[in-house]
Structure formats: structure tokens, C-alpha cells
């Protein structure tokens, strides 16, 4: 009797022990993400900020306001790249968000089920296409088209980047907008119809405004995608070595393509400066992420209130 009891206790202890070990394993796995974020920030920032401190430091002001990138002569200015990145992203949003939103409206509100069954896989495929293929498409089609109409006679331009980025953010905008449109309660639509509004009026006056925050976070996510896109953009941007873009036909050199252009052969300060470019990009991304997390957090609150 006593023995059996003891065995039971031992077995229970072993069980408890196992439970605790696994609890610990699960916790550590969850903490890997936290450690990774910290490691990425620490390593990229420490290497990227190195050239601005210590002996023979490069002026951070010159770096951030410079209009020329010439590693051979120790000139590193990225202001024109920041402008290029921001303009390309803004253009992509201006072009991509309306098309994406209206497509989402079509899928969520208008299209019959059969057509949705065709369009949805098409959008999923668009989302799954690797960015290198978008780059090849941009190079083979969009750049060639622009070459024909551009006053500069060159296809690689801000416009080409805007077009490709707008295409690339479409799936993100469509899927997120669609799910927030679908989340709008049916009663809203019924109330609108009851007041005598037409279907289109209901969509634009009632459903879209109600899905506003979801569409906004889709847009912010799209901004993050566009500003961080590298491979597709690098092939079609032109990557000039200096000068602000003065029209949609001018070449640009986005931050991301500056890094990827020269990373394979850069060394010493040149390499550090590419990391510094990465730091600037990273700061943009952190701001966008924070805005996005705020937005989605708010959405969650709204949901719980309902």
C-alpha cells in the first residue's frame, strides 16, 4: 500500500517535471522572436553607425543630406535615395490602393460566387509570384513601353518603379481590404438600402467608410512592402549615382537597391555605409511597423466593443 503510494508520488513528480520542462521549451521558442528582433537591430545598427563615430568619422549630416553617392571618392550621400524611395512608394500607393480597393469591393460586394472562385486564386497567385519575376516583367515589358513614350528615351525610371510596386502591393491591399469589407455587419447594408440608397451608394457611403481602419492598415502594410522591396526595383530603377529626381521619367536609386547593388563587392567603410543605408531603411520600417501595430490594435479594440 505504502509502496504503491510512493510510486504514484514519484510518477506524479516525473509528470510535473516533464510539464515544467516543456513549458520552458515553449516559452524559450516564443522568446526566439524577441531575441531575433533585438539581435537584428543591435547588429545592423552597430555596423551601420560605425562610420559616423571615432577617428576620421564621416559627417552624419553629409550622409543624410548628400546628393551624390561615389564610394570611389569617399562621397556618400543618400538624400536623393530617400527622396526616390519615398516618391516611388507614394506613387505606388496612389496607383495601387484605388485599384486594389475597388477590386476588393468587386470581390466582396458585387461579383457572383463563380467569378470570385476564379479571381481569388488569381490574386493568391499574384501574391505568390517571387519578386524577381516582377523585376523581369518590369524589365521586359514596362521598361520597354516607357522607353517608347519617355522624353528622355530611357525606360528605367521612377515611373517604371511606381508601376511595378503598384502591381506588387495589389494582392496585399486586395486581401486585407476584402476581409475588412466582409467584416462590416449586414445590418449596415440593410439600413442603407432601407433608406433608399442604391447598391453603389451603399458600398461607397456605408460599407467602405465602415471598413476604413482595415483599409488604412492595408495601405500602411502596402507602404512597408513597397519601401522594402529590393530585387524587382533594382532591375528597373536606373540606379543613378546622384541628383534628385525631377520628373517621373528620371532615374532613381531607392535605398534598397543601393544596398543590393554594391553589397557583393563592398568592403571597409563602403560596406559600413551600405549598412548605414540599411539603418535608414530600417528606421522607416520601424515607424511604419509601429503605425501598423497601433492601427491593428485599435481595430481589435473596436471589434471587442462590438
Amino acid at each position, binding site marked *: 500500500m505504502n509502496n504503491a503510494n510512493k510510486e504514484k508520488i514519484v510518477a506524479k513528480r516525473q509528470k510535473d517535471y516533464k*510539464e515544467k520542462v516543456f513549458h520552458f*521549451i*515553449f516559452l524559450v*521558442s*516564443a*522568446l*526566439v*522572436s*524577441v531575441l*531575433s*528582433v533585438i539581435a*537584428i537591430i543591435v*547588429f*545592423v545598427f552597430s*555596423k551601420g553607425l560605425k562610420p559616423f563615430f571615432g577617428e576620421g568619422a564621416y559627417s552624419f549630416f553629409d550622409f543624410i543630406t548628400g546628393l551624390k553617392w561615389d564610394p570611389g571618392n569617399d562621397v556618400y550621400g543618400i538624400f536623393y535615395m530617400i527622396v526616390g524611395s519615398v516618391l516611388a512608394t507614394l506613387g505606388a500607393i496612389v496607383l495601387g490602393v484605388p*485599384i*486594389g*480597393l*475597388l*477590386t476588393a469591393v*468587386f470581390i466582396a460586394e*458585387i461579383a457572383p460566387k463563380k467569378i470570385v472562385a476564379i*479571381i481569388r*486564386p*488569381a*490574386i493568391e*497567385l499574384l501574391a*505568390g*509570384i*517571387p*519578386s*524577381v*519575376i*516582377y*523585376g*523581369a*516583367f518590369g*524589365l*521586359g*515589358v514596362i521598361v520597354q513601353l516607357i522607353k517608347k513614350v519617355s522624353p528622355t528615351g530611357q525606360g528605367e525610371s521612377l515611373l517604371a518603379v511606381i508601376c511595378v510596386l503598384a502591381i506588387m502591393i495589389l494582392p496585399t491591399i486586395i486581401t486585407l481590404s476584402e476581409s475588412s469589407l466582409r467584416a462590416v455587419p449586414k445590418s449596415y447594408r440593410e439600413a442603407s438600402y432601407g433608406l433608399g440608397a*442604391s*447598391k*453603389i*451608394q451603399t458600398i461607397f457611403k456605408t460599407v467602405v467608410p465602415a471598413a476604413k481602419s482595415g483599409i488604412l492598415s492595408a495601405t500602411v502594410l502596402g507602404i512597408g512592402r513597397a519601401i*522594402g*522591396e*529590393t*530585387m524587382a526595383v*533594382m*532591375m528597373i530603377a536606373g540606379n543613378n549615382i546622384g541628383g534628385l529626381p525631377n520628373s517621373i521619367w528620371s532615374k532613381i536609386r531607392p535605398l*534598397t537597391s543601393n544596398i*543590393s547593388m554594391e*553589397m*557583393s563587392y563592398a568592403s571597409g567603410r563602403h560596406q559600413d555605409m551600405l549598412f548605414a543605408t*540599411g539603418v535608414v531603411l*530600417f528606421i522607416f*520600417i520601424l515607424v511604419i*511597423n509601429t503605425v*501598423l501595430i497601433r492601427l*491593428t490594435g485599435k481595430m481589435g479594440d473596436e471589434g471587442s466593443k462590438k
Partner: protein
Amino acid sequence: MRAKARRWEFTMIKNSNTKLKDGIAGGLIYLSATITVAILIVIIGFVLYKGLPGINLKFLTRMWDDVTTVVDVNRNNVTGNNTEAGYVESLGISIALEDEAVVIKSIDNDSPVKDAVNVKKVPYALKKGDVIGKAGSTNFKNITLEEAKLALNEGTGPIKMKVTRPGGGIVPMLVSTIYIIGLTLIIAAPIGICAAIYLNEYAKPGKTLNIIRFAIQNLAGIPSIIYGLFGMLVFVQGFKMSYSILAGSFTLSIMLLPTIISTTEETLKEVPRTYRESSMGLGATKLQTISKIIIPSALPGILVAIILSIGRIVGESAALIWTAGTIAQIPKTLVGSEAAAATLTTKMYWLIKETADLEQASSIAVVLIVLVIALNILSKFITRRFLKKRTS
């Protein structure tokens, strides 16, 4: 009476105005949906138009680079009864001239070239399609078929041959892609799934949970080029892995954690509460409930998470170029110079950037798109079966 008529007129105008507005808005909606679909069709059409002509059996089954090897073949004078023009009795092979090169067209079952060894005495069996550049002391440049046959049949005993196996295929990239997918999933899947279990089953609302969620959301938003920089700095240079599949896989593992965690968490959330309660009620511990009840019923969702990850790995370029390199070879080790490997996507990028060869790049793109479509269908299939099970 007049006032009534005017009001009616006014309503008419208002109505037609609304109709016009509705018509324009409706038209724009249809236009946008058409544009979206048209873009996809144009992209795929472009890739197929440029890439399809380059796709053939050789492209899919050959190595990337030409490989030239010197081999020794023991001729044992098989008495073949083949009477083809290009048949070489002493070796049991048929040869033919293609573009002024001597190509092996067929090999007999008992042919000695199957037991050929290279200079290091390592077996190197010749294959159909290999090009013979030299045999014995005869150079096969600008040679006729008869002369080549004569040179190969000359004398008895072993003969030295210089053989080139032509490249131009994507086999190394396919193999490397599979290696990197495997390695990355071995690292990332357990961590991601365990993290999702922690978040859904153990974590209590509070500071720790907030920090972890914040980190995951941030990780999801970091562009792949930053991952590439980090991987190069830490794994390639810091841990001295050099460009290798392991460095690439570690980098991708971190990048994929948010995808795996959030997709797995979604499915864990869908496991009904009653499952947990009945299991606990029967006296099972929390761990037993997780391993026996929750994970099995969330398995299809976890599978979908893994398929999504595979799709991202297949399409990734920026995070892999500076961690795994762009050399087209089948990696032999996990780290070091023999472990550098280009995936299909990184090789496609390299082709466009270094050689401006859009045709060959598009051929790789066709393979990539086929892979992406296959993965999409697979995940749909799993989701559909899984959903059916749940609702019935």
C-alpha cells in the same frame, strides 16, 4: 400643380444624376477588377512567351556548368551485334556527330564505359549525351565519324578518354532549393510551432505576451534585404559559415518565424474549447492534452503554415544572395566553400543582373511559377478537406 411638376422634374434630375454616378462608380469597380486579372495574365503570358522555348528535358535534367573529366575505360571487347553506322564494338556504345562534336547516343547494358573511372580512380560512369573530346592520343576536333570510331577501336586494353558532360540545366538549383527548404523547416518549424503553442495555450495576458507579440509583428514587417544584411553579418562573417546553405537557412528561419507562428496560432485557436475541457476532465495533464488532442486536430493548419513557408523560401532572393551565394552547385557540406548554393530564384536574379539573359531567366521563372501554383493548390486542397471535416 406647377410646383408639383417642378418637384417631379427635380427628382428626375436627381435620379438620373445618381444613376450616372452609380454607373461611373460601377464601371470603375469592374475596370479595376479587370486590370488586376489582366496584370496576372500579362505577367504569366510574358514569362511563358520568353521562357517556354528554353524549357526542355535537357534544361530540367542537366547540371548548370559543363563538366569535363578524363576517364579510363577498360575495353573488354564485347562482341556487339549492332550494325549501326556509329556503333563502336570495343566499347559497346553508339556515337554520332552533333555540331562537329562526337556525342554518345546510346550505351549497351554490358558496356565497359559504365565502369569508367576518373583520374582519382573514382567511378564515373559515362552517360548518354556526353561529348567525347579526346580518346587515346587522338583529338576529336573536326573529326569524321569513321576516324572517331577508328580511334576508339584502336588497340586493346584500357583507353583514356576526355569526356565533357554538357550543362545548361537547372538540376543544381533544384537540389539546392530543396536542401534549403528542408534545413530551414527543420530549424524554423519546431520553434515556430512551439512558440504558437506557448502563445495560445500557456501565455497569460501581460507584459511578456505583449513584448513577444510586438516582436513577432515587427519581425513580419522587416524587409528581406535587412535579413540578408543581418545574416551576412552574423552567420556568414560572425560564425564564419561563409556563403553556405546553413547560413541561408538560419537567416530564412528567422524571417519565416512570424508566418509559421501566426498561421499555427490561427489553427490552434480554431480547436474547440470543449476538446481541451474534455481532455482535462478525463484527467489528462496540459502537456498530454496538447500532444494528444490539440496538435493532432491542428495538424492540417500546421501543414498549411509549412506550405506557405515553402512558398516564401522558393521565392526569396534578397535574404539568400548574401548568405547562401549564387554559385550553381550541389552543396556537399553545410558550411564552408562547398556549401555555397544558388536557389532557382537567386540564380534567376544573377542571370538578369550579370548576363542580362532574360530568356534563360524566364525559363527559370516558368519553373518557379509552376512550383508556386502547385503549392497554392496543395494548401487549398488541405484547407478544403480540413474544413469539410470540421463542419460535418
